[in-house]
């Protein structure tokens, strides 16, 4: 009787500890991280207006998601990483009305180069987003402006690419 109770209590304790640990962590290894663009940079979490978000998970290709869509995991090949970003026109001001903080640049070519050689040119989608898989390394990403970024093996670099500036009022 005593032994059975000890075993039962030990098992119960282990179960509770395990469940508690999982509940407390709430972001177990392998869970997607979601980001959205706020007009100047990528921030965690989905956008308030249900716009495009980027799902990111180490070892997998980033996924551009519309509202309600779920990310599908596609492995990144060994030795590769990913670039995902948005081309946008910064918009600020407005004496009478608060408008959008940015205007996406749809169908804009984005050039990815390294060591002076163009390795890929991708086109932004209708919301200004683009993504591409590249070999890990240092790259220059260019639309109207340019950024330089190091892509690590299995990781995704999120890139806001400003293509213009609009002073509204």
């Amino acid at each position: 009787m005593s032994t059975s109770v000890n075993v039962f209590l030990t098992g119960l304790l282990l179960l509770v500890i395990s469940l508690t640990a999982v509940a407390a962590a709430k972001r177990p290894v392998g869970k997607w991280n979601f980001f959205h663009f706020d007009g100047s940079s990528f921030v965690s979490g989905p956008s308030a207006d249900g716009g495009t978000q980027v799902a990111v998970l180490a070892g997998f290709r980033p996924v551009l998601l519309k509202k309600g869509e779920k990310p599908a995991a596609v492995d990144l090949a060994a030795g590769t990483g990913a670039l995902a970003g948005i081309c946008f026109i910064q918009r600020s001001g407005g004496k009478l009305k608060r408008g959008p903080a940015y205007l996406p640049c749809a169908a804009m070519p984005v050039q990815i180069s390294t060591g002076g050689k163009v390795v890929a040119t991708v086109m932004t989608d209708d919301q200004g987003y683009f993504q591409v898989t590249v070999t890990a390394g240092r790259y220059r990403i260019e639309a109207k402006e340019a950024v330089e970024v190091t892509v690590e093996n299995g990781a995704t670099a999120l890139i806001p690419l400003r293509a213009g500036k609009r002073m509204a009022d």
Partner: protein
Amino acid sequence: MHKILVRWAVAAVSLFLLVLPAFAGQLDDHYLAAFAPKVSGNALEKAILVPATVAARAVRSGTPLKHGLSRDWNKLEPATQKVLAKQLALPVLSGSELVLVSAEGHFRIHYTTSGSDSPDLASINNYTHLGFASTAAWAGQVADTFEAAYSFYRGLGYHMPPSNPFDVYLASLVSLGEYGETDDLNKTPSASYPYASSSYIVVDKDFTDSIFSPGTFSPLDSLKVTSVHEFHHAVQYGYNFYFDVWYAEASSTWFEGELYPEVLQNYQYINGWFADSTRQIDLPQSDPSFNDEAYGRWIFNRHLAQKYSATIVRKFWEAIMPIAPINGADIPMAPVVNSVLSASYNSTLGVELFDFAKKVYLRDWPTMTAVTGADISADLGQIPAYVPVASYTSYPVNAASSAVPAVTLPHYSFAYYKFTPPTSTAALTLTLAKVSGIQAAVFLKVGGTVSEISPNADGTSYTIAGFGALDEVALLLVNTSTSDGLQASFSTDGSVQSGSTTTTPASSGGSKSGCFIATAAYGSYLHPKVALLRAFRDDYLLTNAPGRLFVSLYYRVSPPIADLIARHSLLRGATRLLLAPVILAVEHGRAALLVMLICFGFAVPVLGKVRDWRAARRGIVV
């Protein structure tokens, strides 16, 4: 039997305590839907790499954006080309485009006589009584008005924008709620202006829609202030594409009143700033209050221009001319302003903000110089009165007052407090406790006359004799430093002791700051549990001296701990476990008390049983 009871009791208590954290770990993306914190290397997002270094493109002179588009045009689908034409090319008007070149040849006015972008001539004439005979005549008025802006800025010594002639489009901007907009076009680097950009302007076709209040500001008035406002943006692009947006709006809006002081439209934006003066002067564009508050900051330029000369603003713009952007970001203007003030005017931004904030109460503004000779007698009356953060009518004022006599100020911000005398109070003594970055001033008003009084010999208190006979007393607190989160408090009963104030690190930002450890554990500044702890800090801890001391100590020791936690997932989980009872206690105070009592109730008999069991094992009879 008692052994079983003891074990069941221990198991039950353990179960209860261990399940608690599960309620605290609900990281829910839906709570983060709006305005989540920036990605900044948080270990939770370790899969993400932000650009390590970002460089401005080595732009090619005379490489228009549309030429770049032309290069790839054939690669695009027709639907894509349509989208691109709308979003990136120059404006396309609703009807056949007509072009009128201004008399001096500096501007090309693009307009149409059909469709939604066609100016409503009858309405223009109805409001202006100027009898424009044709749309072309109105376009000519637009051209002349822009030429006036051109001459004005050239006369002030500004470098003119690179586009010549400069393109101005008349289009309906009602749906956008804009008077006008200025867009960059091409990078036009030169030896003197390495980061310059050309631009073009779109202004509303006629300013007759009700959103422009044409009954108050005639279409011609709106055209005047819009032309001088937008063309200064064009000038700004010509100096450096990477200008700071808040100062761009402060400059453009200030010039509205410099060239057209009789219109008085820009005064309506000032109150937005005064009513929220505890925000920093260099409000970021991403701030939700930017549109309501940034334009009003033009009045600070008026202070500087009237104290020194109108050329001071030009010097600020000339100072950013050669500055390279860092990581492709806009160039912060506050340090530039401070640098110019230090180098050329033996002053600082902090000194000028303090001086300006005093002027807000003293209202000792010099009258405007009438550039156009128009009647501007209404000018000074348009500057709104100061807006106190809190007003006091019952005394003493101390930590128990309903409006807490304490403030946390970000860099370059200010706060006013108003004291209205009760008839029975003969004297008032204000005692301050503040850090060195905060400057204070006390004013009294009697019979409508305002004066500033000096502090007592201790330097931290002010005695106002005959308080009951005054109209009011005003206390001004200004953060004249670059540090955020500077705190000050005051009382009228001496209860505030010197040295009781605290300084939080710039990154913590006072009421906008986060709880570092909780933020690290929950992964987001805006996580509801973190917000709960933040509110607890602001509402309970910062309202009393021991609480402020605790917060001060916490901010000193927690950043490195938080950094360690953020880097290790196990530590984050463990921290959440440890924070769970704290959050439970903050969130459900009564429930937490009940749980503690229950646990205590369990613990006493269980401990008693344990003591009996141990005694029995040793053969002791209790």
